[in-house]
């Protein structure tokens, strides 16, 4: 009886302060708090995405009215040798750079997983390629690849490995190799530090138990380390593949897609066509071609990740 006497006036107070009650409700606070993020993402991601689809289906030059042309831009792209070369380049670039980053990133993570003096400082130094503006560190690489004053050539000559300087960025194949190496250089720290975080969660007792059971180092890596870091590895791969596939800055600084359009990736070709030449429809079509490919990659990796 006592409780009802207490709750009745309380409810009355609440009724008179309906507005305050509304403000205190989870759902109203929730929507209000999510609104700014949703607004920005809708305005600058969801809407441009729809606009991009419209652009890619139109003949749309800067400053002119768009004309709907259906899939013409995509069809014309598929016939263009520069575009098909670009598709091929992007796959090679992504695959080769990812393998390099995976192998060397894992190796570096295993090295850093040792205990040694100055570990914090060393780990911090290894992340530098990842945190320094990519364009600026890539400029240093451009200078290292310079046709006449390349310090890499100087090393190779010094070691007696070559007689004449190599034109790193002047030859289509060497240029592809060069941009792949620089991408790997920049991405290895991200793999290494993330994998290291994964390695540190593995209990030392597991390795000791395995060693007692007679497992050698290779077996311990194969049956303990790999399965334990697999979830981390998959997440790192997911982001790395997306970023590498959609890379722009590195190629823009090193080759601008040259020599003779032989090192373009989707993003640099889209920039060339859409921004430099002002053909928005073609440019949007080129960059949107990445979308279905990325969706497939993401879905496969996420399904794999969920299984773990």
């Amino acid at each position, binding site marked *: 009886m006592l409780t009802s006497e207490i709750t009745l006036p309380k409810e009355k107070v609440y009724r008179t302060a309906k507005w305050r009650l509304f403000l205190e409700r989870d759902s109203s*606070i929730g929507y209000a708090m999510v609104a*700014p*993020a949703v607004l920005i993402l809708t305005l600058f*991601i969801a809407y441009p995405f729809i606009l991009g689809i419209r652009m890619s289906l139109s003949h749309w030059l800067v400053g002119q009215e768009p004309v709907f042309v259906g899939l013409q831009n995509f069809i014309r792209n598929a016939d263009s040798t520069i575009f098909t070369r670009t598709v091929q380049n992007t796959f090679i670039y992504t695959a080769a750079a990812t393998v390099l980053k995976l192998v060397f990133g894992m190796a570096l993570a295993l090295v850093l997983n040792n205990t040694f003096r100055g570990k914090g400082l060393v780990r911090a130094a290894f992340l*530098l390629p990842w945190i320094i503006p*990519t364009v600026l560190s890539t400029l240093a690489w451009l200078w290292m690849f310079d046709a006449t004053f390349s310090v890499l050539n100087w090393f190779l000559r010094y070691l007696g490995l070559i007689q004449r300087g190599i034109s790193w960025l002047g030859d289509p194949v060497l240029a592809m190799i060069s941009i792949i190496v620089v991408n790997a250089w920049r991405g290895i720290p991200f793999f290494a530090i*993330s994998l290291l975080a994964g390695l540190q969660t593995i209990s030392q007792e597991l390795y000791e138990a395995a060693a007692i059971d007679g497992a050698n180092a290779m077996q311990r890596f194969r049956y303990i380390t790999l399965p334990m870091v697999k979830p981390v590895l998959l997440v790192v791969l997911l982001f790395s593949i997306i970023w590498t596939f959609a890379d722009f800055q590195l190629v*823009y600084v090193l080759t601008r897609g040259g020599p003779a359009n032989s090192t373009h990736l989707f993003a640099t070709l*889209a920039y060339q066509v859409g921004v430099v030449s002002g053909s928005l429809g073609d440019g949007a079509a080129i960059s949107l071609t990445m979308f279905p490919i990325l969706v497939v990659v993401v879905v496969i990796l996420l399904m794999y990740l969920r299984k773990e």
Partner: protein
Amino acid sequence: MRQRPLERILLFHLPLWFFLIVTLFPFFWMFITSIKPNAELYNVRMNPLYVLHPTLDHFRYLMRETIFLTWAYNTLYVSILSTAISLVTGIMAGYALSRLRFRGAGGMAVGIFVTYLVPPTLLFIPLADVVRAFGLLDSPWSLILTYPTFLIPFSTWLLMGYFKTIPRELEECAMIDGATRLQAMIKIVLPLALPGILSAGIFAFTLSWNEFIYALVFLSSTEIKTIPVGVVSELIRGDVFFWGPLMAGALLGSVPVAIIYSFFVEYYVAGLTAGAVKG
């Protein structure tokens, strides 16, 4: 496990030094070039790793002949504002999605994660048109408002993880004592989530400082460019490369992020690995 000395050299010291040299050489090269006089820079007979007469000429050139300091100011301005916007919206969204029960919360969380997977180069052409429609082309606000598109998803996800580790009981006690939901969030939860907020902030700041393609496409006037775009587009003219000033600019443009990073390494690494380890 104990390693024999030879094993430790082969499996630890050798690879460690190999990785260190490869990782750091480009930065050394950047530095040595920036203090080398032109006479030594373009002399093929010299050992390029030495510098005989170090000089600050290239830095002087950068300060006098280019508006590097203006670019630095622009970069700082854009980075701070876009980081602030992203942190505030990210904190609110992260808190709401991890703590409050409302219809569509799960869907929104997934939606925000999906936008995190969208690379900026996928949408830059239509986005330029949106920016133009808002009358923001060639204005720093074109960057301040679009950088959050890749900063908010990241901050929201990182902070959702942090908020989930803070026990609900703390807020519930405060609310029983008469605090409103917002007071409980600001006075109880936010101070506890400070490491996460710091991680997200450092991360967002470096990402904005380093951003290139939006700044390249949306800005055209020299005096509002950011460092990455200014250095690449104004110091490289045609086929003529002024390597001294270029490397001086690259070095100076890298120093601010490197300093901030060195103070907050632990938070940066925590942010970097949080997604990977917890996700």
